[in-house]
């Protein structure tokens, strides 16, 4: 079954925009995806009909808001195939999810312990572990990236040992599009009983996730990269691990009993959800995942592969262009540089033609240094993009090349 892309596009009002008289070609989906009307409606409906604080009100609105909020948690649980709803923590996004884990890890590690991250991580999945290691005296090791844009699995094997307490890696590289062998990497770490966190910021955007199949302890992702609103995301953690993980922010909702001098903590998931949660956005994120999950996932994967294959073919034929990141398993991202022209120049001149791409270091400065580039231009694709839009990118890029020659 194929995807009716035209019908999908109809549901995204922003795709009708024009930029300087050109139709918008939105190829910055790895930064954030656009939102379908049903998600926008979910947000508006929440504030129009049942806005209220959750879990504590003695009235109808609070009941309704709580019901929708907890139903959204169930949608997230099903999307990632989590065993229990209590394991799904609402966050402000991937970065906060990783910080919750890193904050606890900093308290659990001792000098001599080792943490493994990778040379392809974005800063959210690197700086956090640096800080956890600094706080605890543990040592941070990183898995190098091969010229292909894949993680060096031999080096990873060599880094793992009985001192390894924690391993973190991205499901999909935001800057290169590399899909990492997360199940195999998790299994290797588990031979040494290390905790494993998979950064799903880019992974969750492309299809259902199965945390039980991966075998990891934590999986963090953002709503806004999966057609949902900004400012909301989810952290999944195994109940056996999360239940004893040091608490993050303290305050209301996350407590069980409080005296003037002490407090005890609430049960999962609430022990990690201090304060009033982002109810409206969580409900709309649930709607986004419901919408996305309802699409034929095989057809989504086939369409996204067709977009990337077409873009890669045109890029290989394009004189003066170098693709950064040529992993065998890639999804959603074409990162490149031109012989003449800084990525910022490329981005500006594409924008002037209505083509939205990201340029710069993609919050992954060590990775850019690894490839000896100041940054790249990155076109990233989503379910609503078309082959014609990929063609438009390369027509516009020809003009850029001429202007910068």
């Amino acid at each position, binding site marked *: 079954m194929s995807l009716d892309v035209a019908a999908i596009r109809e549901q995204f009002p922003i795709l009708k925009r024009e930029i300087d008289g050109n139709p918008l070609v939105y190829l910055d989906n790895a930064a954030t995806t656009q939102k379908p009307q049903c998600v926008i409606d979910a947000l508006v409906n929440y504030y129009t009909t049942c806005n209220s604080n959750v879990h504590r009100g003695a009235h109808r609105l609070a009941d309704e808001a709580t019901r929708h909020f907890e139903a959204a948690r169930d949608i997230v649980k099903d999307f990632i195939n989590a065993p229990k709803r209590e394991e799904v923590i609402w966050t402000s996004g991937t970065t906060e999810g990783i910080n919750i884990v890193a904050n606890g890890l900093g308290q659990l590690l001792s000098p001599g312990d080792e943490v493994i991250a990778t040379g392809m991580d974005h800063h959210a999945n690197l700086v956090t572990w640096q800080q956890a290691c600094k706080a605890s005296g543990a040592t941070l090791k990183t898995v190098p990236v091969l010229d292909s844009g894949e993680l060096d699995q031999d080096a990873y094997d060599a880094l793992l040992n009985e001192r390894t307490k924690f391993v973190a890696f991205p499901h999909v590289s935001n800057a290169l599009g590399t899909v990492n062998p997360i199940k195999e990497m998790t299994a290797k770490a588990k031979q040494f009983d290390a905790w494993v966190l998979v950064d799903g910021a880019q992974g969750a955007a492309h299809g259902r996730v199965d945390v039980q199949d991966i075998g990891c302890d934590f999986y963090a992702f953002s709503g806004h990269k999966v057609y949902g609103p900004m400012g909301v995301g989810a952290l999944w953690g195994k109940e056996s691990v999360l239940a004893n993980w040091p608490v993050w922010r303290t305050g209301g909702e996350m407590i069980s009993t409080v005296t003037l001098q002490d407090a005890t903590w609430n049960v999962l998931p609430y022990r990690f959800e201090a304060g009033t949660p982002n109810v409206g956005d969580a409900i709309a994120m649930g709607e986004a995942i419901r919408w996305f999950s309802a699409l034929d996932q095989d057809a989504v994967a086939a369409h996204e592969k067709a977009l990337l294959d077409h873009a890669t073919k045109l890029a290989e034929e394009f004189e003066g262009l170098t693709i950064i990141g040529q992993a065998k398993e890639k999804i959603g991202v074409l990162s490149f540089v031109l012989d003449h022209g800084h*990525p*910022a120049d490329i981005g500006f001149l594409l924008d002037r033609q209505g083509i939205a791409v990201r340029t710069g270091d993609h919050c992954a400065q060590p990775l850019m240094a690894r490839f000896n580039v100041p940054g790249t231009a990155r076109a990233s694709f989503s379910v609503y993009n078309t082959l014609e839009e990929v063609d438009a990118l390369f027509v516009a890029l020809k*003009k850029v090349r001429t202007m910068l020659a």
Partner: protein
Amino acid sequence: MSLPSIEEIVDDLLFFDDWEDKYKYIIDLGKSLPVFDEAWRTPERLVKGCQSSVWIQPGSEQDSAKGEVLTFAVDSDAIIVRGLLGLVLAALNHKTPEEILAFDVTGYFESLDLERHLSPTRGNGLRSIVGRIQNIAKSAA
């Protein structure tokens, strides 16, 4: 080489109806800026934007008519930003501190329909460079 005067630049840029011609002019202006000594690309001279970087080396010299004037050598790794820096230098280089402080950079960029490059959201370092030039002028005034 000397940059075109600010009047020439405004005339030239307003003459183009087509965005491509306009930006080709800015790119050519960037190419025509004096070479910035590679050894000057140091952290003290750097204004890092998240998309492109800009370097600035201030100096001063005596002008027979005006007395002491401020001079600036500038560079960027992005050619369009280098061109925009050329526009800034055409207005602010070789001017007295008082002339620099009296000059309305925002109005100048607006008259060229280029004000969005000065926007804080662009992350190209241009806005910070203008601020730095103005601060140097304030200290010297």
